[in-house]
């Protein structure tokens, strides 16, 4: 029997671990969401293809580091194509049309995975098995710490990229107004492509960490555990803000873990959604709304 305080701390750590995985997935999602206000329903399924590509290479005996890198590149490249052929042609046709093409892409990706790999759960073993650190009765996996560090590193890296590079500044300009950015000489098409590419690559990083953390991969990492969680995290954290995506994801992870731990696993999803709805009613902008200079 363990003390209540220890149990609470363990639930807290479990929630942080789940949250930091959601965070990586949400960051890529939120970049696209924030800039184009597009509900990118294809996000999860695109990075799922990247993760499955990594799985394919792993089972062929390719070195894990190379396989994972290839998976990330696959995510980046697929999103470049998707942007060019599914989003760019309908970019200025209102918000509904690109949302529908995104759903179409999601189905195409999902069916590609079904065709090649099928929908069962596969073991995902890259030979990295974290050890456990014990603090009193609380267990923290080193893997959990790495995941959190990777999430923070990606966040810092992308923040620097946005603030310090010319392309990054271009991305920020586009998120404020595409026509104005174009007039200022920002290469709109190329910059938006890069945003999608980075979004896909970040998604694959998150997806792969998810697979490593749970030692398994299945098609659900795309939509049910990807797109939907990323979207929820973005709503909580604030659309278009990286910090918001990370904090929103961690809050989501904590909510899931605490509700499962202290209320019921049976009603977990219902309760978490209820909390989300309540949250949206109280704070529709999210915790950290994107900071956009008001036009005067």
């Amino acid at each position: 029997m363990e003390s209540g305080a220890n149990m609470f701390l363990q639930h807290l750590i479990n929630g942080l671990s789940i949250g930091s995985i959601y965070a990586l997935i949400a960051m890529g999602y939120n970049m696209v969401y924030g800039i184009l206000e597009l509900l990118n329903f294809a996000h999860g399924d695109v990075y799922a293809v990247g993760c499955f590509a990594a799985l394919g290479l792993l089972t062929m005996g390719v070195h894990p580091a190379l396989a994972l890198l290839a998976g990330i590149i696959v995510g980046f490249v697929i999103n470049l194509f998707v942007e060019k052929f599914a989003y760019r042609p309908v970019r200025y046709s209102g918000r509904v049309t690109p949302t529908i093409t995104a759903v179409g892409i999601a189905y195409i990706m999902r069916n590609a995975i079904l065709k090649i790999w099928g929908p069962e759960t596969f073991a995902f073993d890259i030979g990295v098995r974290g050890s456990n650190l014990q603090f009193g009765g609380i267990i923290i996996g080193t893997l959990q710490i790495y995941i959190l560090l990777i999430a923070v590193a990606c966040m810092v890296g992308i923040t620097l990229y946005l603030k310090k590079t010319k392309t990054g500044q271009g991305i920020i300009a586009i998120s404020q107004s595409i026509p104005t950015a174009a007039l200022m000489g920002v290469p709109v098409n190329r910059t938006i492509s890069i945003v999608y590419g980075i979004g896909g690559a970040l998604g694959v990083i998150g997806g792969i960490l998810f697979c490593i953390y749970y030692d398994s991969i299945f098609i659900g990492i795309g939509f049910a555990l990807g797109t939907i969680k990323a979207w929820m995290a973005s709503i909580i954290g604030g659309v278009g803000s990286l910090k918001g995506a990370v904090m929103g994801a961690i809050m989501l992870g904590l909510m899931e873990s605490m509700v499962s731990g202290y209320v019921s696993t049976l009603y977990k999803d219902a309760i978490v959604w209820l909390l989300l709805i309540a949250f949206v009613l109280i704070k529709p902008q999210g915790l950290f709304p994107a900071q956009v200079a008001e036009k005067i």
Partner: protein
Amino acid sequence: MNKKFVSLVLLIAVALFGVSTAFAADTIHFAVVGPMTGDSAGQGIQMKAGAQLAVDEINAKGGINGKKLTFEVADDMATPNQAVIVAQKLSLDKKIMFVLGHNNSSCSIAALPMWEKAGIPVISPSNTNPTLTRLGHKNYFRVVVNDDIMVSQVCKLAVKDLKVKKPALVWENSDYGKGMKDVALKALPALGVSLVGEESYVPGVDRDYSAIVTKFKGLGADGVLFLGDYTGAALLAKQAANLNYKAKIVGASSIAHPKLIEIGGKAVEGVVSVTSFDPNDTRAKQAAFIKKYESINKERPGEWGAHAYDIVYLIKAAVEAGATDRASLIAKLKSGKTFDGVTGNIKFDQFGDVPDKKAFVITVKNGNFVSYKTK
């Protein structure tokens, strides 16, 4: 010229049609319906493999009364709505004499009215929800013991053999899981122990069991009754190992699949399960079947493969005893004759259940399922 051409086409069509119906009369056709994709696809694929082995053996010896066996495979994706769609489609096919399926109780519950309307006998290799045979369907049979019996044995195994004093329960949120949970909630108090915790998960969606593990650990549960699928059991065992939670994991039939070990690795060592087929059975008839199945499919059969194999032979016996169509097949299966299969004696009661069938206990040792000796 044109007219001649048309009449020629018609002639060919009539000839072909004539041939195909004549062909149909020389065969006994059935459908294997189960999850060929999805989280329990491993089970559906075994159903197909078991049926295939029996069909090949029977056809190699000249078929049943000179008729060759043929079958088609349909995927119900382990989801009730897909099961109904499959039943809608296949029940229009007059060639199908019987259905070997479904694998999942929830699929059978949904699709049985459709099959019954067409008069097609449905024989399931693995439905264990106790209520299924009490719904009044006249065309339904199952060759597996139901969960009343199975889960009572799981509870007994946990309490009597593994000496679990404070059991906790995880059930999959489906007709199958809920049916088992209800049985366990009655069986455990009767054995003198009470549950310390009870949690559920959504099969095919939930991947995180750390909250459940932490909770059970906090409650001091010394045994986990896992009433759900092999993927869930494997992931729970892994996450329990990561969190240094050492409770014994005990489950019912559907976790006793080779994929449990493939996904769970070292973490599932020592997991114990009640099953209606023991893949290590050394009795001559069983051992011969297991060897043959393994040489073709590169894995040992679980209860799905073995039951499907038995069902095909069961039908053979019924046809040899005089069954000629769907209705007479149902009558023959209900006649109370005992069929001796690789999974044990199959004798249906008036509900289509096999109340006298024996269950086995197996455990994972050094990466393999081995027989577990109960007291």
